[in-house]
């Protein structure tokens, strides 16, 4: 048996040591805590949220919960159109969504997948009242009391028993729809008997009551319900057995049932609002994208789309993102290579000149750092444009004809030139710090051993400077691949990067899911390249100083 080492007081040595070190550890943790929190809040959490946003898709099922449920039994391959039940569910979902002004958001979301859905949703939202009026107006004609909110409240509010599950279910529905809290007293609870008798009307009334109480801050007892309650009642009365009911408005309900209160034909009514509802396309889109998570954004990010039959490529004329990814990587490589070519001699000079001259040169290298990025990029715009400095000089020298000035901006050339300039210090500094550690005696030793200047450089100096090149290359490449401002200003249409597309989706098209997917792919690409670099060169060989 292995003997446990004991400290002088008899406790095991390991525990004793751990106790002695604990204080130090806590103190060290305390020192890094502010930074840790800062990084966590400003970096890790936003990135996590971004990654999540690229697959998150709750808006469809939150906005159209009953429609999504009804569509689940619809076989998109066989049936021509979804059933009447689906249209009916769509009506009630859309009605409350329109009141909460959520239907346009959903339209925007679905429009990413199928063009035209945005306006379809927006227009349909306005015309739902017309469908409701099919039942509402006859009901009003039967008895004026139906127009009064108190009648409804008396009918629906709990007397002997409360339908708790309905209340909880509807609280959840409104909460998910409005993305807000719906707990608390709302001065209403659905009556269990009525809820059993008139399930649809009770459901819609409860949802309405929760909505006005929590979102508008009003008392449902004193308000008139939305018109959508009438079609719900009409549908309920088609099957309800009122014989045993003697609660409030019992006679009014019987009268309405006897009068055969008309319910709308939802399929026809929707087709009337917009003929697109009579086609399969919007329904297929909703069904395909009804899951809580979606791969749709990622498929979009690589020029594909999610369809009812699985993945499909975008039409040729809409494929731009893969090209853009390829261009971003290719141009970043070019920029990296030109930085190496331009930076190496400067770094060598910096490391080998006498101190005074080296310091002066270092200041020149660092000078761009002290100038705003925007200013530097704008300066390149001045330099490179057709009436700019470089063209003027070339024309003046006579190398270029005045009517044939070079186009060196708003294309890839412009982006490469200005980004090389901007990123050059990031290449020079790591190379410089590595070269500084290479003693001049190595070159002398090589020469004393018979090597020519070139052999001494190539066989002895260059191999030792590779870690600096590696560090600079990683730095420049990773910075370049995510560059945004410079390509935006001098890149025109041919010289933009994927990050410009991300920015477009963040700020203009508001397709954050796609932006997040593009960003995620970029992040993964960088990580893969980093991994590959580690495998080939070895990250241990990278030195930043």
């Amino acid at each position, binding site marked *: 048996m292995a003997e446990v080492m004991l400290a002088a007081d008899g406790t095991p040595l390991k525990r004793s040591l751990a106790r002695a070190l604990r204080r130090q550890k806590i103190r060290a943790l305390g020192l890094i805590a502010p930074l840790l929190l800062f990084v966590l809040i400003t970096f890790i959490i936003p990135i996590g949220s971004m990654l999540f946003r690229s697959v998150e898709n709750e808006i469809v099922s939150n906005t159209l919960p009953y429609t999504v449920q009804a569509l689940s039994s619809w076989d998109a391959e066989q049936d021509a159109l979804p059933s009447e039940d689906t249209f009916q569910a769509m009506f009630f979902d859309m009605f409350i969504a329109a009141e909460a002004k959520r239907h346009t958001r959903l339209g925007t979301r679905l429009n990413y997948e199928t063009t035209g859905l945005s306006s379809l949703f927006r227009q349909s939202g306005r015309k739902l009242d017309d469908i409701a009026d099919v039942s509402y107006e006859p009901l009003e004609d039967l008895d004026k009391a139906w127009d009064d909110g108190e009648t409804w409240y008396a009918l629906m509010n709990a007397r002997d028993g409360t339908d708790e599950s309905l209340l909880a279910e509807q609280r959840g529905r409104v909460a998910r729809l409005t993305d807000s809290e719906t707990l608390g007293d709302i001065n209403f609870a659905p009556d269990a008997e009525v809820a059993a008798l008139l399930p649809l009307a009770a459901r819609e009334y409860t949802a309405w009551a929760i909505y006005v109480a929590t979102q508008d801050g009003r008392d449902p007892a004193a308000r008139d319900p939305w018109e959508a309650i009438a079609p719900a009642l009409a549908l309920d009365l088609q099957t309800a057995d009122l014989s045993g009911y003697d609660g409030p408005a019992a006679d009014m309900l019987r009268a309405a049932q006897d009068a055969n209160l008309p319910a709308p034909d939802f399929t026809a009514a929707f087709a009337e609002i917009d003929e697109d509802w009579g086609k399969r396309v919007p329904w297929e889109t909703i069904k395909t994208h009804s899951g809580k998570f979606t791969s749709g954004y990622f498929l979009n990010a690589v020029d594909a789309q999610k369809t009812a039959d699985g993945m499909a490529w975008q039409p040729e004329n809409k494929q731009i993102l893969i090209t853009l990814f390829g261009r971003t990587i290719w141009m970043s490589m070019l920029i990296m290579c030109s930085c190496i070519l331009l930076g190496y001699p400067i770094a060598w000079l910096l490391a080998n000149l006498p101190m005074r001259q080296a310091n002066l040169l270092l200041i020149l290298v660092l000078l761009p750092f002290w100038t705003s990025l925007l200013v530097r990029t704008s300066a390149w715009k001045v330099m490179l444009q057709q009436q700019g400095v470089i063209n003027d000089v070339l024309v003046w020298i006579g190398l270029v004809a005045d009517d044939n000035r070079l186009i060196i901006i708003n294309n890839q050339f412009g982006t490469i030139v200005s980004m090389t300039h901007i990123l050059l210090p990031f290449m020079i500094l790591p190379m410089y710090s590595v070269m500084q550690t290479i003693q001049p005696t190595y070159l*002398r030793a090589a020469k004393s*051993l018979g090597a020519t200047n070139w052999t001494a450089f190539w066989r002895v100096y260059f191999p030792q400077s590779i870690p600096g090149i590696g560090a600079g290359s990683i730095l420049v490449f990773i910075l370049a691949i995510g560059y945004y401002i410079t390509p935006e200003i001098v890149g025109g249409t041919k010289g933009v990067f994927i990050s410009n597309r991300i920015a477009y989706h963040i700020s203009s098209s508001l397709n954050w899911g796609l932006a997040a997917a593009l960003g995620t792919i970029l992040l993964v690409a960088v990580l893969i390249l980093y991994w590959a670099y580690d495998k080939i060169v070895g990250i241990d060989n990278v030195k930043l100083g």
Partner: protein
Amino acid sequence: MADTATDQAFVEFERVQKSYDGENLVVKDLNLSMPKGEFLTMLGPSGSGKTTCLMMLAGFETATHGDIRLDGVSINNIPPHKRGIGMVFQNYALFPHMTVAENLSFPLEVRKIGKDEREKKVMRALGMVQMQDFAGRRPAQLSGGQQQRIALARALVFEPELVLMDEPLGALDKQLRETLQFEITRLAHDLGITTVYVTHDQTEALTMSDRVAVFDDGRIQQLAPPDTLYEEPQNSFVAQFIGENNTLMGVIDEIAGETCVVRLDDGSLIDAKPINVTEKGQRTRVSIRPERVEMDKTRLNPDAHTLKAEVLEFIYMGDIFRTRLRVAGSDDFVIKTRNAPDQIRLQPGAQIDIGWMPNDCRALDA
């Protein structure tokens, strides 16, 4: 005579001067000639110009004036890589990205020597420094002493006739240094290589060299075999720099041939041997080695002058005793006595008489 000297000389500096800034001369009028196979050490304090001389010989610095010849041929305009001189650097300068074997085969590769012969030579060179087992290692995996052996092997692998060493043992601890000193001299003599060795460590210079050139202020102060250098320093700088030395200031009182009498600053008289003093009344610095001071009057010449001394400190150093005395107003006069059974251990405060043989006391420039 001059012609034969030039013919025999393998390495020759003739009136060489070097200036970096155009205002100060780092090397002033250097003349030096070395026969083949000699082990010559350039010794001197830092800034004395010894390393500059070595660099000029290696070709990394150009002489501002004068001629450097190798085997009779002026090499002023030959670039370093064509001089064929092996060199060992202070920090070894082993290429860190190559293995030991690759380091050694580098000079052979640039000389376009075939692979088989290269391997043979590399193994032979590693054998010379007993490092055959380390061929596959990187320099960073070796200790300082091992690295220096490899550096030595690399400088020898292409069989140069002249090897330069720039303080090669400076970074090593004492014991290792002594072992390597012995190994370097053995190799140099066995292979018959002409060696120029630069150091600021006088023990190293004395133990290793055939001849030592003591540098100061851009000049060779004395060029002589180690024993001559120690026992017969030509001026007070050499006397001070090599070994321990007592100095007393005075004026020549009498001078006759090989002996002179010096009146010290406190008025007492002593015997000395005039080295670079010539006339009576000249100011002089007399120099005497601590181990040549005699306390036993019977062992001196009967008419020898003696000095009164007061013992200030007695230091027991094992093999010797070191006693610090106050002599003629100077508080740091040191004598060394052998730790023999009959040796007296002087007590601080004791008054004694000291003297020396006139030959051991050298009257030098002030």
